């Protein structure tokens, strides 16, 4: 399945950042007609017209209903959402522009500040881009630790998204239990890695040293939390009232993928996948897919991925026998121009960094995040839904304004 990941605009020229299978690269602007998502990514969205009794019910940027400062322009006549337009610009911090002119170490810190709950995925995608530009081969220790922590990030993010769905459905006890587990996982991160959101651990070409014995103890405690999650998740599936609110809500089809090019659990919920972990050689990976394409299917994919991530971590630990002290990699600050592309599978989809450098100073960076696509998908999924389905639809995607607006 080929996807348009983004449009690189420089010197009044456009290039297309695309992915097809394991290939990720740049195509000429002339091929833009092959991608329907081009019009979405190039901000050529048509403005919505209000006719008849329709009015714009504006939610945000400051609203108790939304955790972040984004705006939902909901065109409605009272009950049904006829059309939706999401404005992410309030959250835009211009991180790509901030990175330009900075050295790679400073830019790595900025990449962690794009979206804290995907901080490690952003950090790994950025460092993979720089490592490709400099042709750095990382050690087994660094590779394995990164893979383990990417899965840890996936576990606590999925539990967070499911807790949001439980809260939307007023399943107070279940939601409180999930938030407790979410906070427990963050505390565990702090205890073992000195950062609740796994910031400051990854470096370019190396990692902070974490002894393997410490990782083993961490995984034992993680195992207990995941098992507790699975127990209460199984119990929640007995609540027909809860499931009924998620079933047939925010349904997507493969045609929506053709139009928008979204990925992650939202795509897996309609039976397809572009998960880049399938190309990893360090563990066996079989993507989890569902077929209904609704909020319930997206939740089931996430819950099953929690178990899958724990299994991946355990299988990596079996292979990963020796730890080693990592030395910092020195990047040449020459005047040579380099280009690199790096990717990482975040909990909500693939993150891609396209980086151009002169020496170790960033000239240009383009960040393609999963949430960029997911907000367009949410607009599509909300159309025709009634207001009570708003939270079930929006929260099931695990999209974040911070990730999309950058």
């Amino acid at each position, binding site marked *: 399945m080929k996807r348009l990941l983004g449009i690189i605009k420089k010197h009044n020229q456009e290039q297309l950042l695309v992915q097809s299978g394991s290939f990720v690269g740049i195509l000429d602007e002339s091929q833009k007609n092959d991608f329907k998502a081009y019009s979405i990514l190039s901000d050529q969205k048509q403005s919505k017209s209000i006719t008849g009794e329709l009015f714009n019910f504006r939610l945000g*940027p*400051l*609203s*108790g*209903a939304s*955790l*972040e*400062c984004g705006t939902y322009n909901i065109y409605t006549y009272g009950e049904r959402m006829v059309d939706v337009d999401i404005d992410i*610009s*309030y*959250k*835009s*911090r211009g*991180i790509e522009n*901030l990175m330009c002119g900075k050295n790679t170490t400073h830019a790595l810190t*900025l990449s962690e*500040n*794009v*979206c*804290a*709950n995907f*901080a490690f995925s952003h950090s790994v995608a950025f460092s993979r881009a720089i490592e490709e530009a400099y042709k750095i081969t990382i050690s087994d220790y660094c590779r394995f630790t990164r893979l383990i922590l990417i899965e840890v990030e996936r576990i606590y993010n999925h539990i*967070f998204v499911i807790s949001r769905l439980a809260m939307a459905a007023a399943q107070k006890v279940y939601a*409180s*239990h999930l*938030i*407790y587990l*979410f*906070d*427990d996982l*963050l505390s565990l991160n*702090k205890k073992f890695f000195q*950062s*609740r*959101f796994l910031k400051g651990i990854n470096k370019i070409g190396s990692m902070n040293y974490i002894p393997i014995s410490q990782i083993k103890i961490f995984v034992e405690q993680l195992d207990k939390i995941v098992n507790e999650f699975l127990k209460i998740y199984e119990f929640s599936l007995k609540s027909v009232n809860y499931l009924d609110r998620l079933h047939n809500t925010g349904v997507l089809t493969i045609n929506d993928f053709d139009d928008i090019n979204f990925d992650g659990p939202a795509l897996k919920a309609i039976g397809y996948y572009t998960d880049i972990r399938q190309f990893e050689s360090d563990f066996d990976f079989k993507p989890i897919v569902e077929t209904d394409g609704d909020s319930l299917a997206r939740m089931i994919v996430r819950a099953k991925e929690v178990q899958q991530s724990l299994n991946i971590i355990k299988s990596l630990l079996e292979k990963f026998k020796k730890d080693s002290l990592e030395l910092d990699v020195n990047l040449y600050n020459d005047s040579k121009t380099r280009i690199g592309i790096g990717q990482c599978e975040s909990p909500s989809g693939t993150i891609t960094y396209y980086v151009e450098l002169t020496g170790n100073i960033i000239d240009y960076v383009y960040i393609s995040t999963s949430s960029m696509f997911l907000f367009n998908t949410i607009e599509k999924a909300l159309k025709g839904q009634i207001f009570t389905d708003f939270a079930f639809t929006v929260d099931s995607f695990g999209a*974040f304004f*911070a990730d999309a607006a950058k």
Partner: protein
Amino acid sequence: MFLWPIYGISKYYTKKKVDLTSGKTNTLMHKCFKKSMHVFAIDVGCDNELTLEFYSLLSPKYNTHRFGIFFTNTPKHADLLAILSRPTQMMVDPLLEAINQMPQPFGIMLLENSDIGIPFETLNIPNVVAHLKGNIDAQTIFSTMLSVMGRW
């Protein structure tokens, strides 16, 4: 009917007189919100770390209601406004309008975990009762709120 005058007299003698027009904001907050405080947290452009730390406070582990801390969905019902991170340019006006809507007396807690955004110092934000910087976790936010109430 007979009990109402007794209730009124007892209320008159036990009610603490609080002058809302003078004194430092911190002292005022201690006096007014010692027993309960309503908090509205607004994200004005953070990287979600602070948002999720606030979300973690809903965990039964912190049991915020036991300490009289309640989260509201609008600044109009809040005693304390928690501003999560330095604002983006587009969020400055909505932020100032949120402050404008706060009922008197009120306090503002500033939280910043990075140097991205417009510095708070340039915005002349009134009634600042706490300013947290750096690595801020749920526990730190919770203990700061208790100290704003004068309970820590």
